[in-house]
């Protein structure tokens, strides 16, 4: 007779404890990963949300003759150290363009100096004791207040923290993505159609397949080297332009689009193809009229995910020079431009404390766009998901 249940259970106690430990450890690991994510997002929100608010100063403007030479003369002397330099600097130009305004008076909200802004947000600042007292007084009288930061969304980059905005980067991103998608989407879908529907299963096809999988895993910075050496130095595409950046990113996005398109095409059951062949369609007609429409949601989902990936990419763009300082919104695919992640990168290397929140603010904008893109990909997939 072998051991009784009780004997065995007794021996098992230690082993059961060990087994339970593995369960708790694995659960802990997942929890830890979740915690990282939570920490990351709360840190970003904490640092970035203040960027959407900005200190503004209410000032009595007096556009005197002197003000058309020196903008500082237009405002109360006491306010000069508090108001942003960019506001003051623009006044002479404005008066020169509209000479009939000279002599006018008005009350306006002006951008405050970044130091005032940082002080109001309880961040590190460089205001002297006197200036702090002035600001405190102004806050009490309601002349200085935190308001929604319009400049952040309506202006380009600036070396002066309070008037630096993301507009030129957003426009640059949109232009770069247009180039990327215009190249990667058709080529990617065509490649996938060829491999999935037309290609014979031979060495050459396998080579293309291995090559595509490999391209998907190559470090992105190497695509930057390719862009620099081939597109810029060899073909003479203008450096820093959305064209150069977009082409480089297109090559990077290509494998993502190819792989997801192939999956989408593969998920269309062969019975559909056979039915179409059965009514006398040619191979191309089968693909164009039957397979492709059914695979479209999957292709779109994959392309959006690829686009989101390209949108967050920075390293290859730095290599092709898209970290330029771009204060004005670009208008051409061949002019120097910057993109959102590159803007984040340049701001992150600014020494000024005020740029930390700008950076985090830019990050929040970028993350929101990416979350929106990915969420729409998920919704698209859910909506059109079909079980065959």
């Amino acid at each position, binding site marked *: 007779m*072998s*051991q*009784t*249940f009780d004997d*065995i*259970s007794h*021996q*098992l106690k230690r*082993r*059961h404890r060990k087994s339970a430990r593995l369960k708790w450890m694995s659960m802990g690991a997942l929890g830890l990963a979740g915690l990282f994510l939570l920490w990351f997002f709360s840190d970003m929100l904490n640092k970035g949300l203040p960027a959407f608010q900005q200190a503004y100063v209410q000032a009595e403007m007096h556009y005197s003759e002197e003000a058309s030479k020196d903008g500082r003369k237009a405002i109360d002397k006491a306010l000069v150290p508090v108001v942003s330099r960019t506001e003051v600097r623009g006044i002479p130009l404005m008066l020169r363009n509209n000479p009939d305004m000279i002599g006018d008076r008005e009350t306006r909200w002006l951008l405050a100096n970044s130091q005032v802004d940082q002080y109001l947000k309880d961040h590190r600042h460089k205001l002297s004791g006197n200036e702090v007292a002035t600001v405190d007084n102004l806050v009490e009288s309601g002349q200085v207040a935190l308001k929604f930061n319009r400049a952040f969304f309506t202006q380009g980059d600036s070396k002066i923290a309070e008037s630096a905005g993301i507009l030129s980067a957003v426009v640059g991103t949109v232009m770069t993505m247009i180039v990327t998608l215009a190249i990667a989407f058709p080529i990617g879908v065509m490649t996938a159609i060829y491999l999935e529907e037309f290609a014979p299963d031979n060495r050459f096809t396998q080579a293309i397949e291995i090559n595509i999988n490999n391209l998907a895993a190559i470090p992105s910075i190497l695509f930057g080297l390719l862009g620099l050496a081939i597109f810029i130095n060899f073909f003479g595409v203008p450096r820093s332009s959305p064209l150069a950046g977009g082409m480089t990113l297109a090559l990077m996005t290509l494998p993502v689009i190819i792989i997801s398109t192939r999956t989408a095409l593969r998920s269309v059951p062969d019975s559909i193809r056979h039915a179409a062949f059965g009514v006398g369609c040619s191979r191309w007609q089968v693909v164009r009229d039957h397979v492709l429409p059914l695979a479209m949601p999957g292709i779109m989902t994959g392309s959006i995910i690829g686009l989101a990936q390209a949108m967050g990419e920075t390293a290859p763009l730095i290599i092709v020079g898209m970290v330029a300082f771009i204060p004005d919104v670009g208008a051409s695919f061949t002019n120097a431009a910057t993109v959102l992640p590159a803007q984040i990168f340049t701001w992150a290397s600014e020494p000024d404390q005020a740029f930390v929140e700008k950076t985090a603010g830019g990050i929040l904008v970028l993350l929101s766009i990416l979350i929106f893109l990915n969420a729409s990909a998920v919704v698209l997939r859910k909506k059109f998901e079909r079980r065959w």
Partner: protein
Amino acid sequence: MNSQAPQFSQQMAPTAGQPYTRNEQACHDLSIRVRDLNLWYGKNQALKNLNIDLFQKNVTALIGPSGCGKSTFLRCLNRMNDLIPSVHTEGLVEMDGRDVNAAKMDEVALRRRVGMVFQKPNPFPKSIYENVAYAPRMHDLVSRKVEQDELVEKALRDAGLWQEVKDKLQEPGTSLSGGQQQRLCIARAIAVQPDVILMDEPTSALDPISTATIEDLMDKLKEQFTIITVTHNMQQAARVADYTAFFHLGEIIEYNDTKVMFSTPAKKKTEDYISGRYG
């Protein structure tokens, strides 16, 4: 334990769970007693009011058409059904005076005493030696390397595999042929020295020669273990089993001495099945 079973005359209806006829040569010590066992997959009842006494050191075959619940019943005996979340069991499965389904019963301890061999051979991705040595080592059945070597050799000999693998013990278990793999799985099961070995259609994935080897093996192993086997193959049941239970639609229609059942079945349904009218 109920070892003093009353003698039955042929064709007399027995009490619940007892076979209709006793095999004269067989051992009649009770191994597992099942009373009013019901089992549901979600809302589908798969086993209905099963009563059966399974005897030690016998081969009991469970036969019946596919989907009749014989494999499900087999998996109740070592609670492998626990792995399926939707399964719900009621009733008594008693072994060694303990309710197997009780909350207090440690299913790991139970499986330690009720081993199992599966339909498809499933050796671990380890060497032949490790496949056999792993479980006894974990169960502290061996403490020294020499003991372990001896145990592995004994288990492989008992499983009739020793001659074929003694020179390649370090090769992966998956390098063996299907029949050899299945015998390796049997060696693995007997190495932990269980009381009962459950076999779930152990030969259905094998060729006829391997099947014959395993059937011979079952005949030898019943000297040490209680063997309960599910089979699709009625000839196999007739060849290896001392007792046979016929399952149909989740019920035990007939439980009898194998020879009696195959010559003079007590129930019409059994006769129809055995004579091949359905199945």
